[in-house]
């Protein structure tokens, strides 16, 4: 299938999928300029994401995955092209509007966790629940990722994987409409990785959270409704899974 053609609706296998796309990206490019050299991180992305969809984003390092995720999450703006969220054009929004969008709709898991070093696990989650409309309690979010015993530890007192789970708890705690995770299991062993994926999966099923996960682990792709592979700033392939594997059944 040519990468720029939208997938026919009947190809989508997800049971929770609805007809209206949550995101529509058209001709999105992102160019970084550092000194005299230009880096084309995205070279023209056309894409729809549907409500309740579970999407996995694959691709080699430097292919533009994080850049795309940042643009979808309103953290960054494309150099050209447009991104629509529901009925709104993200690219026409100013900083205040983007802030509002992130606050109301988006949950993030960053590739480098980005925890506040002077706050405990519980408080790091509270940073988000403090300003969310209908959040779960920080304790519940942490319990879901298996950190119920580590509520009052500081990031420096947690292992890399535990820090990553705090970051995930923080992103799901506000029950976002859109959950964007940049390598959420990168630092986790199989067992905890699966626990975390189960949490994400549950949120996706129960609340219909549109979920995009970046990963280098192709096994995880089996969980997705669709798998998008980026290469050198372009969509190299777009594949629909006839049936989603449950997180518990994954093996790597």
């Amino acid at each position: 299938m040519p990468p720029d053609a939208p997938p026919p609706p009947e190809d989508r296998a997800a049971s929770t999928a609805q007809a209206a796309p949550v995101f529509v990206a058209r001709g999105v490019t992102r160019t970084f300029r550092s000194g005299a050299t230009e880096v084309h991180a995205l070279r023209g992305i056309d894409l729809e994401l549907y409500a309740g969809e579970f999407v996995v984003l694959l691709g080699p390092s430097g292919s533009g995955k994080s850049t795309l995720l940042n643009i979808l999450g309103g953290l960054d703006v494309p150099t050209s092209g447009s991104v629509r969220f529901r009925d709104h054009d993200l690219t026409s929004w100013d900083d205040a509007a983007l802030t509002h969008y992130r606050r109301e709709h988006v949950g993030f898991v960053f590739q480098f966790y980005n925890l506040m070093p002077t706050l405990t696990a519980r408080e790091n989650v509270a940073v988000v629940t403090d300003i969310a409309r209908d959040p779960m309690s920080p304790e519940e979010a942490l319990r879901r990722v298996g950190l119920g015993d580590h509520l009052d530890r500081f990031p420096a007192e947690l292992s890399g994987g535990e820090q990553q789970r705090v970051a995930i708890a923080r992103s799901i705690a506000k029950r976002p409409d859109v959950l964007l995770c940049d390598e959420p299991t990168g630092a986790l062993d199989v067992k905890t990785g699966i626990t975390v994926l189960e949490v994400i999966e549950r949120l996706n099923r129960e609340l219909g959270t549109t979920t995009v996960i970046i990963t280098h682990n192709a096994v995880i792709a089996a969980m997705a409704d669709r798998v998008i592979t980026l290469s050198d700033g372009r969509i190299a392939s777009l594949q629909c899974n006839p049936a989603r594997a449950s997180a518990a059944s994954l093996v790597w």
Partner: protein
Amino acid sequence: MTALRQKLLRDLRVLWTQAVAISLVIACGVATFVMSVSVLQSLERRAAQYYEDARLPHVFAHLKRAPVSIARRVAEVPGVAAVETRVVAEVTLDLPGVIEPAVGRLVSIPDRGGPSLSRLHLRQGRWPDPGRRSEVLANEAFAEAHGLVPGDRLRAVMNGRREQLIVVGIALSPEYVYQIRGGDVVPDDRRFGVLWMRDRPLAAAFDLANACNDVVVAVTPGASLPAVRAQIDVLLAPYGGRGAYGREDQVSYRTVANELSQLRAMALLVPVIFLLVAAFILNLVLNRMIATQREQIATLKAFGYRRREIAAHYLQFALLIVLAGAALGTAVGAWLGTGLADLYVRFFRFPDQHYSVGLGVAASALGISLLAGVLSVAMAIRRVVRLAPAEAMRPEAPRPFRGGFLHSHGSVGRLSPLARLTLRQIARHPVRAVLSTLGIALGIAVMVLGSFSADLVDRIMEDHFEATQRFDFSIGFIEPSDVGTLQAVARLPGVLRAEGFRSVAVRLRRGSHARLTSLLGLEADSGLLRPIDVKGDPIPFPTSGLLLSEKLAQLLEVNPGQTVEVEVLEGARPVRALRVAGTVRDFAGQAAYLTRGELNDFLREGAVISGAFALTDPLREAALYAKIKETPRIGGITSTRSLIQSFKRLMSENMLRMRLFNMIFASIIAFGVVYNAARITLSERAWELATLRVIGLSRREVSATLLGEIAALTVLAIPVGALLGNLLARLTVRALETETQHFPLVIDPSTYATAILTVVAATVISSLVVRRRIDRLDLVAVLKSHD
């Protein structure tokens, strides 16, 4: 509590030493501000109130002798609201148990009640009984210097006759808020005192019954003072009027006004500089602190925190620090202000000695520091908050690093790897290096500014008492006498050398400018009073023509070679244009000299002197005093030694205490800058340093890379700081200048040295603290928490 509030408290706890250092810097700025301004305000308020309440006259005139009926004619001058005639006479006082003689100025008060102008404020005792001729009131400063209380007796040689005086009360007068004798540079409350006596006995003692030799006048609001003075001059001229003058030439009023204007300059300039430095440091520190939290800010933004919310978070952080500093500073400033006000009370006598910190002062100190805090945060956070979060989350792009001179220059290649690393580090962040250098330099500059005033005082002392006024005693005769009298002075006990002088009250005029001063006629080879030029070298006395104080020449707008009109205000009152032969340096800015011969010729008199300067044997002082006390022809004696002592007392308590405060403050500021610079550099580079440690560098080597940077910046800061300090001192000297006083800029090398050493010490201490932190660096934690 919200998580963000929690973060605020945790961050404060982590950074508490830095927060305390900044708070202290702000406290120092605020303390100097509160101290100076509150003292200034309460002095200004008190002075104005006192002059008003006690009716300080607007015009003063001395004359030789006039009938008391002159008062009626003066009262008819348009604009005159009230007139009082008085008898004023100076006498030699002999106090029981005090070996040295003192000069008493006896001022008459009406026979009934108190004076209507220059109202006296009775502090102790009672008014003199009109019927008793020997009762007097003593000025409080004089009474305190001698421990006089009502009932004490003293002896005076009045018009050649010995009289016994009884102190019946202690009083204050608005004319003598600062008790200093005209022509003296510093007050000497032991040697000069004002006494008030009923008119009838005083006039009788000086053969001035129904007559007066002093007139004071209050004018109606809006009256033209120059016009009133001119008319009074015309009225009094036939009676030997010495020229009417206004408050600005009245010694006490002028001294208080000068002191207030200098205090005003200091009260604004130094604290403003301190506050600006504090604000700069706050900005520097916050900027870098916020830069180290760049990723955290981006994360907050990513979660949908608004700019306003993030700004408020950091604002709270800064304001807590600022508020703590401002509160501490206000308290310390008020406390120091009490001390300073007490000092002023010793020299300036006001009936109301109440000192308080005005709410306005405290509020403006708070306002200024809050403004500084808000501006600092606004400037520091603006850049970061504006960045798109995705961008801010990436570490700040390293500036494209080109080797530049560090690569191309051969000599760099010969440096040790450590030195090279240090230099590269500085070259990589030039703006940061410049700002840190500037911060440390400001520490040095503030130290210089805080302590150079003592150098200034030393120089003035040197100029005045060592270079110019080299005599031990100045002896004044009651009446001008033949030069032969000098022989008698030379024969007084202990006198080693004596030189005569002639002094006369004059008005100098050029164009529209006129000044009253006294013209001093000196021997051409005068060695005991030696005018010095602007560079401080003795000036050879010109064979003819005037030597004028530089400041006086400026006021009259006259240059050497040009002439001024000299009007003598005594005797036959001759007027003549005299050529200005040169200018001299003089602290009080009032000096005018002529050779004694030329002055005698001008006055159309023979070889006559008004008094003598004497060099004496200190061991025979007691005998000299005893002799002088019983010599009726001597009207007064001034002791240089005693003046120096009094001056030193004044300075050591006043200037030196101020200097100490300033030095303490400046050291704190210097320490605050250096410590913060070191700590922030550490937090910015902690990850890098931990990595170096992990790679295998020793603690010593790792510390060296950081401390090397701090040391290099300190070395760079030394010349910059010295230069800045010089500039600030120059600014201050300018601001201290009054109409008559001019100060040279003198900064002793030791002042620079102290400033530099203090800052170097602050650097060393900060480095040790930072070094300890590096040693205890938890490698794992640092590497892990690099978010």
